[in-house]
């Protein structure tokens, strides 16, 4: 036992969790912690807005597989975190956010910079802790990391009243915690696995639908082995991009509103969908009754609340995904030999050959699909791409072939404009030796471009490629297609000058007018010691296709 202040115990506990980096902004109610942090050896990266701090922690977690840590003061610091935490929650990303709080005797008095952290964060976190005594801190930190990083991962908030940071006490640091109401995962039921093997082997046209859970559980290799063994084509969700190398012959790309032509087509021709670690988002399935019609859905997930939430499965397995897929692979191997060929695999191959990488409805050389393809060409295999939200994101999803897990980072569930750039900085902090690129829209980038200051001063150089169409492009696309071209509040105009903006932050800025110029600028940018913003003016009128309108089946793709 040692006598520590609460703040000291907090930092010590973070060190015991092997925290190396914290993204945050200090303020009155968290100053005792920042005081201890100064000499702690933990790197603090100063954000310029707490939303970005949370996105950085999120990007760090996605790139590394570790828990990302964000820190903020009470009141406005806490509320600024909300979007970032909600974003991490929707995509099940392990983030621990530590917020300052007014002293316990002032709780509920509308004290200066008081905000009800427990009330605000409850629906967008796995759990919120508010230690009321300094001695609780070591346990709370241990429990927060345990909850964030196990089971279905997700964000956890620790809200620490200031007097709890200041108070001193004998501290005991537990090696592990037990939370009696929390079971991270259940062992998969062997008979349900056997039944899955039966259904799968009796299928004529099976596909695997791989979601974010495959990446989070580290199951990519087993999943690909299973697919190869039975020659089952693999489609993914947006979050599952990268679970199979997208240049793999069986990889068809993502399904959904802006899925690839071949993936949407194939999934709707299938008779069995082996769905692994997905939550059947409405943007992936589109019209659910069409999606489930005429095919059997098998659902594997660690989280029992996902079973039947959006799609009623024909059969399901609840449990840790890697264990479950490995058991399935073994069960399959016991029953049949590896397949050499099948008509169905041929059909997939034919679709892929015909449609892979095809650009619909755009004929210019300098266009987003070509830029994205160029980025893939130049970026090393382990290079990381993040995206903003809107057309840029969908072009990235359609044309950037992810070759390794955790190298494609996008805001799937919340669709948060402004996520990509701070997430890229967070990813860079996790993987300093790897180039990190944010594929951006001009509207989104403006939301968090103040993170340029963080990127430059902290020496975390990333590359921002702005597909600059001078409009809120995705909204404009909907207005073009569904609102008779009545553009309402989408024109962003010629401001700002992104090159000047970058330079004002002491970053690099270049504007390119051809694919050739882009290639040159991009090659330099990924080697640069400083963040580079590449401004790429494109037409404001381009649409992303394929496009499945809301309410339609994945069969009904608009392609121009």
């Amino acid at each position: 036992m040692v006598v520590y202040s609460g703040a000291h115990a907090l930092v010590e506990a973070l060190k015991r969790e092997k925290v190396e980096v914290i993204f945050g902004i200090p303020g009155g109610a968290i100053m005792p912690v920042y005081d201890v942090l100064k000499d702690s050896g933990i790197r603090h990266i100063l954000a310029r807005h707490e939303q970005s701090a949370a996105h950085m922690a999120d990007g760090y977690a996605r790139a590394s597989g570790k828990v990302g840590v964000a820190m903020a003061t009470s009141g406005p610091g806490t509320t600024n975190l909300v979007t970032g935490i909600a974003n991490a929650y929707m995509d099940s990303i392990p983030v621990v956010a530590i917020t300052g709080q007014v002293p316990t005797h002032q709780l509920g008095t509308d004290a200066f910079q008081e905000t009800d952290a427990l009330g605000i964060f409850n629906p967008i976190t796995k759990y919120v802790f508010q230690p009321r005594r300094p001695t609780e801190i070591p346990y709370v930190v241990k429990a927060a990391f345990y909850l964030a990083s196990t089971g279905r991962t997700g964000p956890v908030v620790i809200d620490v009243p200031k007097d709890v940071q200041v108070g001193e006490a004998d501290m005991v640091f537990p090696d592990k915690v037990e939370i009696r109401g929390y079971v991270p995962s259940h062992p998969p039921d062997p008979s349900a696995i056997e039944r899955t093997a039966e259904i799968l082997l009796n299928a004529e046209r099976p596909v695997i639908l791989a979601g974010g859970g495959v990446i989070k559980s580290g199951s990519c290799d087993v999943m690909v082995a299973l697919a190869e063994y039975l020659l089952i084509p693999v489609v993914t969700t947006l979050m599952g991009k990268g679970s199979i190398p997208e240049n793999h012959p069986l990889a068809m790309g993502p399904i959904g509103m802006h899925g690839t032509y071949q993936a949407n087509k194939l999934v709707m021709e299938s008779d069995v969908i082996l769905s692994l670690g997905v939550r059947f988002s409405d943007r992936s399935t589109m019209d659910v009754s069409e999606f489930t019609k005429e095919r059997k859905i098998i659902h594997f997930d660690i989280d029992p609340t996902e079973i039947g939430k959006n799609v009623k499965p024909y059969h399901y397995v609840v449990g840790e995904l890697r264990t479950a897929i490995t058991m399935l692979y073994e069960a399959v191997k016991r029953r049949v030999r590896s397949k050499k060929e099948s008509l169905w695999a041929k059909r997939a191959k034919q679709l892929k050959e015909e449609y892979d990488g095809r650009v619909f409805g755009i004929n210019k050389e300098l266009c987003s699909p070509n830029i994205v393809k160029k980025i893939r060409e130049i970026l090393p295999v382990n290079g990381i791409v993040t995206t903003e939200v809107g057309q840029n994101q969908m072009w990235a999803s359609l044309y950037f072939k992810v070759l390794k897990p955790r190298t494609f980072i996008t805001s799937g569930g919340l669709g948060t404009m402004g996520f990509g750039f701070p997430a890229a900085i967070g990813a860079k902090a996790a993987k300093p030796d790897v180039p990190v690129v944010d594929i951006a829209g001009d509207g989104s980038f403006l939301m968090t471009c103040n993170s340029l200051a963080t990127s430059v001063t902290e020496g975390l150089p990333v590359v921002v490629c702005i597909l600059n169409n001078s409009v809120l492009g995705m909204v404009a696309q909907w207005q073009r297609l569904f609102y008779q071209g009545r553009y309402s509040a989408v024109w962003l105009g010629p401001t700002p000058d992104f090159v000047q903006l970058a330079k004002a932050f002491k970053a690099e800025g270049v504007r390119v007018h051809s694919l050739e110029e882009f290639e040159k600028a991009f090659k330099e940018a990924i080697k640069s010691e400083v963040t580079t913003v590449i401004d790429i003016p494109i037409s404001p009128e381009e649409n992303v296709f394929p496009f499945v309108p809301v309410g339609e089946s994945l069969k009904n793709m608009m392609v121009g």
Partner: protein
Amino acid sequence: MKGKESLRVFSLLVENKPGVLFRVSSHFRRRSYNIESIAVGPTENRDIARMVITMIADDETADSFVRLLRRTIDVIDVKKIKSEDAILRELAIVKIRASDVQTRDSILNLCNAFGARVLEITKNSVIVEITGTSSQIDNFISLASDYGVKEVSRTGVTALSRG
């Protein structure tokens, strides 16, 4: 598609600490389901409280709530209680209009029949306490309303499994 709706009873063991009721009830609020009744109190172990929640729902919805409640970190255990496998009880306090002797006598008879206890008699009213199943209490209130029911306060269902 909605299945057949009926009253569902969930019996939860939860951590007995601040914020837990909020966490539990949030699931219902967010999905726009009304909690019919909720009764909470400590168990034989002071650290653990029992929460009995009732709602009107179909099978599928009830099951989805069980899964959500099980996943809730402060919830230690969840049981979906079938009325035939459990003892379900509710308590109500009912203030009945009674300003003459005849009415009072008649109310006392009614109380006898239901095993209800008279708590207070004043010039204008009788206050009684009744314990029973929810439908017994419904029944009692409906009969008492012949005299005029001024106020009712019900605890909501609490329950223990049989055996």
